[in-house]
């Protein structure tokens, strides 16, 4: 497992980061689905232009945590949130927050690729059209750039107006990532983006994620610890809705502080 680490990289202390290097500041966040407490007092500072992975056993609240950053949890009936999440120095849970605008700045990619059953092109410009952009050339350029970013341009340049459903699973997943980054968001939330893919497609997407870091703050949920180790700079370990440990990826995987973390990453977790 240690092969995956770039041990030459100096470890970063999260507490030492300045406020302007922080993309998301989560303060005492708790979330309830009806009577079930899904997140408990989460406190977390997610650095800008870095890749942060979220790991933990199934049902521990990883997707729910991600859904707090673009307020997609709001769509679930009976969902109740306490605490604050600051993005760009604004509490996104403030009652005057424009949720649709927030979601255009915080992109999300789901566990299963969910392209719209329309053309590839329509998928790419969907978010831009919602933003009111009508200029054909702007849309074309944005679509092309997004496809190039996810290394899909060469594969689909001749079939932009075919249905997105004709793409393979891996291509679809890259398409929905492209769809999200076409909006040039500040933050990209990836919920198990490779869980439905074969090893080759997984590699392509992992490479893509490491490149995305140059422009975006990336949060990635994964069940695959090698993947977390390979791609991320920081790692958070969640267990039953609580944030057990959160630190530099190298440190978390080599010298975990908590026993629960160690049990989980060494596979001894029941």
């Amino acid at each position: 497992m240690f092969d995956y680490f770039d041990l030459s990289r100096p470890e970063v202390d999260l507490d030492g980061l300045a406020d302007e290097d922080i993309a998301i500041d989560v303060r005492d966040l708790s979330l309830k689905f009806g009577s079930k407490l899904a997140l408990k007092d989460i406190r977390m500072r997610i650095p800008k232009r870095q890749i942060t992975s979220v790991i933990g056993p199934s049902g521990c609240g990883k997707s729910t945590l991600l859904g707090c950053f673009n307020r997609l949890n709001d769509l679930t009936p009976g969902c109740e949130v306490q605490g604050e999440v600051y993005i760009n120095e604004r509490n996104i849970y403030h009652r005057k927050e424009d949720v649709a605008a927030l979601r255009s700045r915080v992109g999300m990619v789901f566990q299963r690729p969910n392209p719209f059953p329309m053309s590839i092109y329509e998928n790419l410009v969907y978010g831009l059209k919602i933003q009111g952009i009508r200029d054909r050339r702007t849309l074309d350029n944005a679509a092309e750039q997004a496809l190039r970013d996810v290394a899909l341009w060469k594969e689909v340049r001749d079939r932009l107006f075919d249905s997105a459903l004709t793409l393979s699973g891996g291509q679809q997943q890259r398409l929905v990532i492209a769809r999200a980054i076409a909006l040039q968001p500040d933050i990209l939330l990836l919920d198990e983006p490779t869980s439905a893919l074969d090893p080759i497609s997984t590699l392509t997407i992992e490479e893509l994620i490491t490149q995305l870091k140059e422009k975006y703050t990336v949060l990635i949920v994964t069940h695959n610890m090698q993947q977390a180790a390979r791609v991320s700079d920081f790692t958070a370990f969640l267990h039953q809705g609580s944030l057990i440990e959160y630190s530099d990826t190298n440190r978390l995987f080599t010298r975990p502080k908590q026993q629960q973390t160690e049990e989980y990453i060494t596979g001894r977790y029941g």
Partner: protein
Amino acid sequence: MFSPRLRISYTEGLPIVSTATLVGVILLILSGMIGIMTVKGLAHFWPKTLYQVTYLADDEEVPKQIFASLLSRDFVTTEGQKRWLFSQASLFQFSDQQHLIEQQQIIKMEPLEDLTDIQLRNGNRVIARLQGLVEGSRPLPMAALDKLTEKVEGQVEELQALKRGKLAAIHMQLAEYDRRQVSADAPARQRLVEEFEAVSQTLAVAELELSRYRLQLLFDDGRYHELALAEIESLHRLNSLTSWQKGEHFVQSLWVFVSEKPKRANSAGGVFPALFGTVVMVLMMTLIVTPLGVMAAIYLNEYAPENGLTSLLRVGVNNLAGVPSIVYGVFGLGFFVYQVGGNIDKLFFSEHLPAPTFGAPGIFWASLTMAMLTLPVVIVATEEGLRRVPDSLRQGSYALGATQFETVWRTVIPIASPGIMTGVILAIARGAGEVAPLLLVGAVKFAPSLPLDTEFPYLHLDRQFMHLGVLIYDGAFHSNNIGHGSSMMFASCLLLLLVVLILNIVAVWVRARLRNRYQALAR
């Protein structure tokens, strides 16, 4: 005997056998229905041989003679005697006469070569023996008939155009003078009167000229009559037609049927106004019901909170589909026509009162009533379509910054559109066939003008209209016209089936295209 093997095959076989039987029965019923409509409907257009029938009626001593076509051999008296139904048509009666004659009483039936079926411009039909063609008193060769008919027809049309154009214009002008109380000896007025007389004169001369061309006809009661060619609309020597000509005649009468106005209380001529009225009503109904139904379904499925009230609403919608259609008719009359229409009249058309404008049955109220009737169908089908849209797509849309409205408008509706089209198809099928409510809210047996024409404002929402279903209903009750009226009924029925079929094919085609475009994966 009851080996397990046998029992298994029996229990497995039973559902297959019963399904097959059921399918067979359904197909049989369906094909039987369409078959009867087609045969009986199309028979209306096939030229029928004309006979000189000689028969001895019960209480008579001398045989009678009629010129008639044979409509049916299927009638049977209570004593088991076969009776044949004939349709006689002579110049001196208003409409076709039906004769039921016992088979034994028929002495002779001769398909005389010179028997002719003549359609007059006044709508009447006569059957007579064609004896000759004359100009004034000079006989012309029969061979000249076709050419002459064509020529006369052209001139008649010219004269009619003159009457409708110039003469009518002068009339209007004179009426205008009357209204302005221009004195009778004003020079302008006198000039006009002179012109009027001149034109009338020309017309009279031309008409006289035309009426010199006459057909010499012999009727079944022995009377002899000369009929001006100008009075004749069409003329068919049915007995001397070759098969090819019969085919032509068939196509021609089919065309007349769908393209012309009805004549003689809907028992002859065409059904064009009814066809037109049906299509316009159904299209208007579709335009009204689709947005209403789709909006209601979207509210129920996307916006309404999942609670008791919503379920109650849903149950209500489902039950609306079961309300007898006549109830909708009564509702349409009581609410739309009297209530809404009456108030519209009071507000906007008060200068015409007490004559109602919208406060009377008309095509708009009929379309609206039918839209109410088909609303549940559209709502249920649309909701079904909406439910099939995977939630992951809704989330995908929200995650790209769409509001709920944008998500519904740009993602949910397009993907659910095949489901919506299913609702529209069902609504069209139901709306085109329903007659009972229409009778209350605007469909009539005879309407003088179409609901859509070239006269401003083109679409006359307040007009009454004709409907194929109403015509069928009417045809079925045409007692004195058993034969002809009922064959019109079958023909109208066939046409109605065809209209529904075509509207459906269009809708199914649209749905197939939408499906192709938005093939949503059920994931």
